[in-house]
């Protein structure tokens, strides 16, 4: 749920990176953080365990520029991917404006991808959202690995509705900003639609 702040001339939106454990959600945010101009970002917060696994969420505030005199600010969040952190994942989806599903391309992680996608649908529905209706993009991460599944197969399994999707190698940054821009664009289009209804 976006927040329009007239006194500050700002519009704030929330984007959540979802996906199975170790698929690269945090890595996406870290790359964005590393490559963004210091003026347009805030501090990146990671609530992680001692072994650097996300415990609650990562948070990165980012400003993308102005529209009609309003600064567009995106708050990027990741969820903890590990299955048993489901209660935390539900909380982070509250008030979401757009979702990025980060899939792990490794063949042996395909089941984990499907399980996580199903979990995303269920958790969104619990909050009253429908994945088919909210701004949503898919990212196939780790495309550089030798055991990466064929792209066509992944598309068929994970993106049957043919939403915008991107191949990525988040550790090197390939596809990271393309994914972010695509979801941010969808969010703004949705806000525009919502505002003119």
């Amino acid at each position: 749920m976006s927040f329009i702040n007239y006194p500050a001339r700002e519009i704030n939106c929330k984007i959540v990176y979802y996906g199975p454990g170790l698929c690269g959600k945090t890595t996406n945010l870290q790359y964005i953080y590393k490559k963004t101009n210091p003026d347009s970002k805030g501090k990146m917060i990671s609530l992680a365990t001692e072994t650097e696994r996300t415990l609650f969420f990562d948070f990165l505030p980012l400003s993308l520029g102005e529209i009609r005199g309003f600064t567009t600010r995106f708050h990027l969040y990741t969820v903890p991917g590990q299955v048993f952190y489901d209660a935390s994942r539900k909380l982070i989806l509250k008030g979401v404006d757009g979702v990025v599903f980060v899939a792990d391309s490794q063949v042996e992680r395909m089941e984990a991808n499907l399980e996580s996608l199903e979990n995303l649908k269920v958790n969104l529905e619990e909050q009253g959202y429908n994945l088919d209706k909210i701004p949503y993009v898919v990212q196939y991460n780790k495309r550089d690995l030798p055991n990466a599944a064929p792209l066509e197969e992944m598309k068929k399994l994970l993106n049957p509705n043919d939403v915008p999707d991107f191949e990525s190698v988040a550790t090197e940054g390939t596809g990271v900003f393309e994914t972010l821009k695509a979801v941010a664009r969808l969010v703004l289009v949705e806000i525009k639609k919502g505002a003119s209804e």
Partner: protein
Amino acid sequence: MSFTQLILYDEQFKQINEVLEKLYTETNAKVIFLVDRNGQLIASTGETENLDTTSLASLTAGNIAATGSMAKLLGEKEFTIIFHEGYRDNIYISIVGRRVIMVVIFDERSSLGLVRLRAKKAGEDLTKIFDALMKKVESKTEEGVSPFAEITDEDIDRLFSE
């Protein structure tokens, strides 16, 4: 989407700030801020210069969300107050009108009893302001219309052109 968007107007912003300023003076607090439940900072007052209020806002909302889930597990409706006691500073967090979170940071110049007493009154005042604000947003009157009703695809394209 069927969710009501939060829009903050100058008029309500002024009223909110007045309530916060009053509470700030009455309690001798260091910092007071308001956050919506999704972690967006709404207003702040006090010694905020060296404070990362954006991060604090997001973490506060996460904190409230986690506490709310704990309440549900215990069969409680919600825990409306959270208190963190530190060596130097303390944080008093309360839910206002079910939708916003008020955070008061204070040190030994104030006391929990005082903050609690005054925050309750401020919370009532803020609830009235937010009720009026939500009515205005939902009414979709001319002044309630979002500035984003008129943006064009080109406006959006321009944002991503670099």
